[in-house]
């Protein structure tokens, strides 16, 4: 606790991510109870989220989870490199995933940059401390890869807005208090120019969250319907008609850096399964390690770019493709190594292996499909006709 007793104490760790890494490692070596409770295979998604939230609370109280975020949002200063260090260490010490806190990295940087400062000063500390989490309402039944055709509407009402429509594949809405919703304030024909981003309270009457149980048995996805849900003017993110910019801000940052956060848990998955490995699988394992090395160095460059206030732009598509390749390569090896994965679930370790394996088959779909990433490279980088 000493390191957060004052700004003079937090300074050295804020200014030196290496020092932060060393200090955090020392703290983790004491095996705090909240880490022990979360750092093992937990098949129940609900229990996994609860254990991770309890860990976030402790990390916030001890100060570790506040590095990397500005002081006005409950942070202690520093940048994304601190967060990259923290999650890497948590994965290495046995945490299986970020669970709902993936959205801290996906949404919070954009909310901090483009959201209403007073609102974010109230809401984001609750996110950092594991108290209230967020989901992202972008996709719709008829707007997947073609996000600009979204039809959920926001109409001006009583100095604010009222939102009506349906969002789908909104990760972790079941666990979330808040949802960042992309809604149409212009005509359908206005495509991406007529979209606006809003912060919606999922507890409000008129919101219905229907969890979607996935093929791997987890229920992190949901369909969310909005029926005339009122939203205050301060809950607008960015400008009216600026929703596309908000979405692109999120995607540009997420695609370049998400690979760093995610791949550390794949590294963890390898270590957790080494005892199951057999010589027959060594080439599969070696291949997975090659892919992990590539995503590690590439996504670290994305983190550095973010810290230097630049983005990878279309180059983020490479990182996204490499992450999916490594996720599938790791799980190809796990499938070959765990004799129970395909046929039966006796315990949480097998159950989690099965969940992860099945999930690795869909990583080429979510967050911008593989085909869209390849199109981006062909058009914007190779400049093909």
């Amino acid at each position, binding site marked *: 606790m000493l390191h957060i007793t004052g700004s003079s104490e937090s300074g050295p760790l804020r200014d030196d*991510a*290496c020092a932060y*890494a*060393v200090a955090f490692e020392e703290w983790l070596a004491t095996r705090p109870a909240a880490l022990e409770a979360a750092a093992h295979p937990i098949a129940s998604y609900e229990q996994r989220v609860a254990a991770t939230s309890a860990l976030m609370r402790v990390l916030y109280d001890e100060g570790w989870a506040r590095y990397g975020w500005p002081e006005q949002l409950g942070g202690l200063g520093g940048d994304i*490199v601190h967060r*990259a*260090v923290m999650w*890497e*260490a948590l994965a*290495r010490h046995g945490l299986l995933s970020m669970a709902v806190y993936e959205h801290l990295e996906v949404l919070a940087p954009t909310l901090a940059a483009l959201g209403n400062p007073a609102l974010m000063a109230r809401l984001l500390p609750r996110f950092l401390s594991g108290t209230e989490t967020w989901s992202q309402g972008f996709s719709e039944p008829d707007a997947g890869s073609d996000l600009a055709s979204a039809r959920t509407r926001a109409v001006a009402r009583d100095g604010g807005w009222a939102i009506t429509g349906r969002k789908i594949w909104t990760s972790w809405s079941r666990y979330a208090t808040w949802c960042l919703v992309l809604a149409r304030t212009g005509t359908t024909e206005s495509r991406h120019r007529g979209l606006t981003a809003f912060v919606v309270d999922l507890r409000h009457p008129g919101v219905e969250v229907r969890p979607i149980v996935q093929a791997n048995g987890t229920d992190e996805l949901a369909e969310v319907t909005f029926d005339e849900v009122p939203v205050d003017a301060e809950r607008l993110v960015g400008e009216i008609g600026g929703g596309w910019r908000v979405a692109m801000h999120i995607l540009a940052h997420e695609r370049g850096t998400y690979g760093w956060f995610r791949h550390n848990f794949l*590294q963890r998955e*390898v*270590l957790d399964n*080494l*005892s199951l*490995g057999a*010589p027959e*699988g*060594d*080439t*599969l*394992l*070696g*291949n997975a*390690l*090659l*892919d*992990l*090395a*590539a*995503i*590690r*160095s*590439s996504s*670290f*460059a994305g983190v*550095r770019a973010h810290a230097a206030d630049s983005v990878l732009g279309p*180059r983020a598509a*490479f990182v996204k*493709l*490499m992450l999916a390749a490594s996720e599938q390569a790791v799980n190809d090896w796990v499938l070959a190594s765990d004799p129970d994965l395909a046929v039966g679930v006796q315990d949480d370790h097998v159950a989690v292996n099965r969940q992860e394996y099945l999930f690795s088959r869909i990583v080429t779909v979510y967050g911008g499909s593989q*085909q869209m*990433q*390849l*199109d981006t*490279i*062909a*058009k914007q*980088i*190779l400049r*093909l*006709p």
Partner: protein
Amino acid sequence: MTSVVASSDREFLDAAGAVLRSTAPGEDPLEALGWWDLLSELTDHDARSAALALFRAQGRELADSVALGALIAQPYLAVTGHEPGQLVAAIARRSRRGERLVVVGDVTDRTLLVDRPGRGAAVVAASKVELVRVAVPGRLALHEVRVDDAELAPVATEDEAVAARARGLFLGRVAAGLEILGAAEGTLTLAVAHAGAREQFGRPIGAFQAVRHLLAWAQTDCVALESVVTTAVRLDDAAPPRYSEIAKALAGRNGRRVCERSMQVLGAIGFTEEHDHHHFHSRVLALDALLGTSAELTHALGAWCRETRTDPATPVTALLASAGA
């Protein structure tokens, strides 16, 4: 081609390419580049990355020199007393006839380093050995070395050779990885140009999504390889165990994939002697066969990780430190 390499590296890569293209026969392009001077400064990040950028340029230009063997021999110079440029390492290769030594490039007037694990290192003048040309396409001068053991002058005991051998292998594997990257980029550039120019069904074939995606995958494989080999150059001594094996294995795997996808886009013309594709492809195959093939290294990496329960990931503190370099 897009790149994440720093602009100073980029400058040296371009300069090396220009020199390699314009050197007259009989001249030493490495001399013209000041490359031999870099060799004694490999602990310096900028010198090291410039020295290694040469290999990527060689792959792109299909140029050929003794640089690979000279780089591998560099860590031995303190023991042998040779000047940079004098000593060139012979590389052991597993052949159907058992282990054979090969040298890359024209070794006339050089001294060859023969380091055999378990037996220490020895040297021999190139004039004292028989050099048998190996018919490798890809504009690569590769010679098999036939040497009488009596001609070998010991220069380092096994104990003395161990550290130099590890360092030489690290440098050699990273260099070969960069040359494979350059060759893969070379043929991908041809394939991208072809996709923009060649028309079928009234439009360039690069307008068809199937073709675009092949090329996008090939570019992704190049970018992944570039990231790992340039990270190896930056990390140097701070690289985790087996990182140069990872870089070399990835080079062989990704390099071959890039060549295969490029050839698919090039179509039949890419499978002719008159087209340059096969030079790039053959160079990738030949370099994959030296200093550990992708197949061998990948399997050994998996076995080592499984048996020793080692986490092969680069520590984040090493990445942070090297990013500042």
